[in-house]
């Protein structure tokens, strides 16, 4: 199977058919990741689809003739994540309908209940954005810490610190304790 760097190289230099096929493969490979990221920042599927389209349009424009070409220095997900995130945040800012978690007062947060695994989403919504996104990138998207640092454009130490705090909150929560109890 062609790796992303090889496909990116074909998009840079291949002929019309090969480049379009390589881009299609990249799209199919990463579209679920992008839309999953989008849905962490926007509340509905339609907005997430807009983010998906914007993210891949951005990627496409990197290739000739509109762009100088792309050289992957990290994983493609590290490149796609900030594009999807920023696109989603821009979309969210444009609409007053979507409240930031930062803007939400503690009393507005959904109360954690003892009804089972569904408590975890409420717990996640209660985490500060920057901790939640590091936690999700690490454990849901399986990104190595260095890739997370690249994706968020922050030092590795900051990633570790945010992850530590997020894990601490998670572990100490009644929801997690209940899940971990025999």
């Amino acid at each position: 199977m062609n790796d992303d760097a090889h496909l990116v190289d074909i998009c840079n230099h291949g002929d019309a058919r090969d480049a379009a096929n390589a881009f299609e493969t990249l799209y199919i490979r990463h579209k679920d990741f992008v839309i999953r990221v989008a849905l962490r920042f926007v509340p509905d599927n339609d907005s997430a689809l807009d983010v998906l389209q914007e993210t891949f349009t951005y990627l496409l424009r990197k290739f000739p003739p509109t762009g100088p070409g792309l050289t992957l220095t990290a994983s493609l997900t590290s490149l796609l994540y900030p594009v999807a995130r920023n696109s989603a945040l821009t979309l969210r800012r444009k609409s007053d309908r979507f409240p930031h978690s930062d803007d939400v007062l503690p009393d507005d947060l959904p109360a954690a209940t003892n009804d089972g695994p569904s408590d975890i989403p409420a717990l996640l919504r209660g985490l500060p954005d920057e901790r939640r996104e590091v936690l999700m990138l690490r454990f849901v998207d399986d990104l190595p810490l260095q890739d997370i640092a690249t994706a968020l454009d922050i030092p590795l130490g900051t990633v570790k610190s945010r992850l530590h705090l997020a894990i601490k909150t998670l572990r100490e929560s009644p929801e997690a304790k209940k899940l971990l109890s025999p």
Partner: protein
Amino acid sequence: MTHTDNEFEELPDTLIEALKSADEAVPLITARVDREVLKMAREQFADRKPAWRRPAWAAIAATVLLAVVIGQPQFQRSSMPVMSPRPPDISDVLKLARERAGESGAQAEIDALAMQVVSLAARGES
């Protein structure tokens, strides 16, 4: 996933599964979006020529270089009058000697031409 020393903090699998479940929004990527993105890609790359139609600059440069090298005097055929309507004579030998003076291997050719002139002269053809 490759774990390095930096992947220092782990979570129990149960919690990881719970996180993944919480993130499962089951997004619906419509065929329309797929079509639009892929249409954009085809348009973006539409003007790319197939590799065999693109000028192979290296091959062109190599051809030009070869032509220049072949054009050098040492790569031209000797002035032996192979296609000449007349048999070679001593003036051809002298001309060849002047043109190839100092070249390695030239002396053998000069000698061969001289021997040909001598043999022709001996047979009375010169």
